[in-house]
């Protein structure tokens, strides 16, 4: 089980959550008509091996969206917060 520190409910098992995916993708403005911008948003992913910022929906809990920093190689959860929060790597200055 992965334990996700939901900012509203505290530490909960990942069974309660639905995975949404990469949290770094920004939806282009509604008026954006360029194909490459939408292609990048809809299809392309960094897919890192290591720390990954991602969104989980606490669907069987508070039903809020939670932003999580998790290592995809070890499954270690490095941080969690609200979608607007900046989550820093604990031992590095890198902020994504």
């Amino acid at each position, binding site marked *: 089980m992965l334990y996700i520190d939901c900012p509203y409910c505290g530490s909960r098992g*990942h069974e309660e959550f639905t995975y949404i995916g*990469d949290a770094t993708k920004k939806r282009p403005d509604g008026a954006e008509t360029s194909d490459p911008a939408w292609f990048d948003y809809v299809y392309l992913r*960094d897919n890192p091996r290591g720390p990954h910022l991602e969104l989980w929906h606490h669907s069987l809990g508070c039903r809020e969206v939670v932003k999580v920093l998790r290592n995809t190689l070890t499954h270690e959860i490095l941080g969690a917060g609200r979608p607007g929060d900046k989550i820093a790597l604990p031992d590095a200055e890198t902020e994504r």
Partner: protein
Amino acid sequence: MAEYSVFSLVRNALTGHKNWQRAWRDPEPKPSYDVVIVGGGGHGLATAFYLAKVHGIRNVAVLEKGWLGGGNTGRNTTIVRSNYMLDDNSHFYEKSLQLWEQLSHELNFNVMFSQRGVLNLAHSDGQMDRFARRGNSMRLNGVDAELLDRRQVMKMVPHLDFSDEARFPIYGGLLQPRGGTARHDAVAWGLARGADRLGVDIIQNCEVTGFRRSGNRIEAVETSRGTIGCGKLGFAVAGNTGHLASKLGLKLPIESHVLQAFVSEPLKPFFDHVVTFGAEHFYLSQSDKGGLVFGGDLDMYNSYAQRGNLPTIDHVMRAGLAMVPSISRLRLLRHWGGVMDMSMDGSPIIGKSPIDNLYLNCGWCYGGFKATPGSGWVFAHTIAEDEPHALNAGLRLDRFERGHLIDEEATGAVPGKH
């Protein structure tokens, strides 16, 4: 290296099995090769084999970071089928199935290909309609398919839950009689031996750590065993494609996810076919050693770890019990995880890349094993001719950008849903 035959078996038996030669060499890497394939699983080895055999390109190296077939080739549920609906998939996987039918003979190595039939169960009228449509589309493409009603399924696989209490009553199923299973390790070993006999260097414990570029070409790969020059470079690294691509600054329409598979303690033969559940994601067959081999859904989060989590295991077991209640007291022998390169439309990507001499073979989702010979065959063609074969022309990388998706499940750009 000697042919395997009944005579070589008798001769070696009479000499106490002390004179068998090793099946493939263990060469030191040369300074450069015409073609370097990264990934010594089934796909990479098949590519090297067909490059040497069909295209006469023998100055080839296959680089493997661990041991042969230690990735997804050794971590799947060994199912082989070609029951796809959309043309681009259908013709490609059918070619692969045809290659499977000849593979043991072609390699002089028994890959234990067993065409025991793959049956997809239907649990509603709507699902029966969907299967009829898929079956018709398969038959129009020259692939075998039979729609079975409930009575026929009951006769074929009596252990399924046909009771009145069944949570998901069985209405019928779609059968591909030519589908089946193969022995995964034997596929890797047979292809390695076949490629090696044609002069391909198979280099194990050789992890790619970086690339040397010159303009829009890759001159050499940097590895844990030194720098190796390459005329052309092919990736056949399944779940690690994203990791290698990121070293080149390439973004791909792929997410890596972990998929678990399971084998039970051995039983006497009781499950003769490959059967997939239609109400949940679950697929079951029995191996030659007697263990039930089965799998289910992804863990549903990005992962490069070759291990999964318990909630998914619980979910898979529940699906299994709903389909075959009689396995409820069976003990699990082993389970393991593999890293799936989930593409954004659920279909593979085989073709050229934005870098001139780099070719990609990735996006296999749940289904790379069955494609092993077909994938190698078209990838070898693509590398040798610098142009996709007609069979993988549709599986190109730029289909996402051009809007020509091959979305068999019609679920959109959500990798976990495929």
